[in-house]
């Protein structure tokens, strides 16, 4: 067993945790309203890693994995709606997602591990709001909206407003992330992730972009939240030299040094990718 207090905390004993198990979505929402400290538990691929590291996101958890109402991939007009419990496996197998959001397919594919694919969910990625979340730059670049559900019904929050700070979101204590809604994209999609290795890696820096007019460019792992590089986008749309757009980009991101990488590396890659995106999506 590990030694506490030296950066490697001990696994949280399950005896200290509670799991509420609603039989229906409605019961889940009632439980959430009654106890706002409940932490939604979907596939567990983030929460169980945290518990193993001695970090408890809470004491009481709400098991939403069985709530099929939160599953499903459907098109409504010009909007693609993906249920919060959609797993990476379901994304990768969906022809509709393949057609609408190739950048999401690429993000899912690069997660790498089939075991994680089978249990990791979109809602988990969105709800955790880690700036390294693999799918998050896609929502930012696609101008997706997060659908939140409570006993009062649904409300939609644009993704960029949904993320408030590092691992903090606009989800109220009595709400669940129910779905993400994505408009049909108007331009070529582009996605890159830089990690320590080819699979199963937390990103050092990650970028999703759409060659729309103006372009939409989103980066992860370069700030406490996902960044939309709006000023760089505007420069590119106005025909400015790529070097100017890169200089502007550097003002819009604020990467740090951490165990995985350095600020200098993240800046350099972000700039190179900006140029690469612009060049590769030119036609």
């Amino acid at each position: 067993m590990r030694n506490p207090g030296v950066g490697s905390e001990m696994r949280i004993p399950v005896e200290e945790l509670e799991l509420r198990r609603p039989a229906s979505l409605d019961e889940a929402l009632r439980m959430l309203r009654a106890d706002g400290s409940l932490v939604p538990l979907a596939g567990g691929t983030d929460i169980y890693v945290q518990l193993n590291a001695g970090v408890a996101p809470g004491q009481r958890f709400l098991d939403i994995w069985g709530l099929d109402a939160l599953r499903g991939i459907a098109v409504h007009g010009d909007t693609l709606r993906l249920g919060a419990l959609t797993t990476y496996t379901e994304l990768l197998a969906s022809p509709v997602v393949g057609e609408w959001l190739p950048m999401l397919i690429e993000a899912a594919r690069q997660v790498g591990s089939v075991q994680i694919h089978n249990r990791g969910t979109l809602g988990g990625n969105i709800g955790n709001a880690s700036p390294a979340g693999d799918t998050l730059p896609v929502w930012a670049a696609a101008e997706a909206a997060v659908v939140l559900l409570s006993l009062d019904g649904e409300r939609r929050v644009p993704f960029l407003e949904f993320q408030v700070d590092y691992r903090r979101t606009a989800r109220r204590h009595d709400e669940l992330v129910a779905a993400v809604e994505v408009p049909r994209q108007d331009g070529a999609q582009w996605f890159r992730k830089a990690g320590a290795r080819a699979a199963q890696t937390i990103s050092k820096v990650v970028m999703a972009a759409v060659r729309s007019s103006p372009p939409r460019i989103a980066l992860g792992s370069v700030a406490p939240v996902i960044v939309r590089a709006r000023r760089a986008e505007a420069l590119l749309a106005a025909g400015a030299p790529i070097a100017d757009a890169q200089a502007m980009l550097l003002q819009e991101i604020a990467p740090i040094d951490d165990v995985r990488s350095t600020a200098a590396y993240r800046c350099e890659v972000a700039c190179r990718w900006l140029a690469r995106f612009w060049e590769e999506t030119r036609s």
Partner: protein
Amino acid sequence: MRFTLNGRPVDTTAHPMARLLDVVREEFGLTGTKEGCGEGECGACTVLLDGAPVNACLVPVAHAAGHDVVTIEGVPNAETLRETFVEHGGTQCGICTPGLIVAASVIPQGATEHDVREALAGNLCRCTGYQGIYRAIAAAHARSAARAEPGRRE
């Protein structure tokens, strides 16, 4: 909580958030599934949940309730794989082998080596460099195909 474990119905009074890995190993004595990291990185704890490979160190036993769990001790359609893993150097120290065979058991016939690499990206092996594992899986698929072909002389 009731679930099916290697084809048999079982019952557990473990804490609902207990890791499926610990329940399988300690309550049911099935020690073939291993803990290599506790973080869902190494795949040594791979089991099938309703036929899909998952990391048992990240699954609350509550999610097994009403479902089907298969471990190395009960994985179906793996006899040929077990043979070829032994014959072609797919196993050395053996600690990753159970998780690997469980994950490999759902790789479909006709998979290319690239498909196999992708299917096993969540299983770490430190001994083999994976090459013996690819040979074992290719041999297993070839052998199964030969056995399945009607009228073929062995």
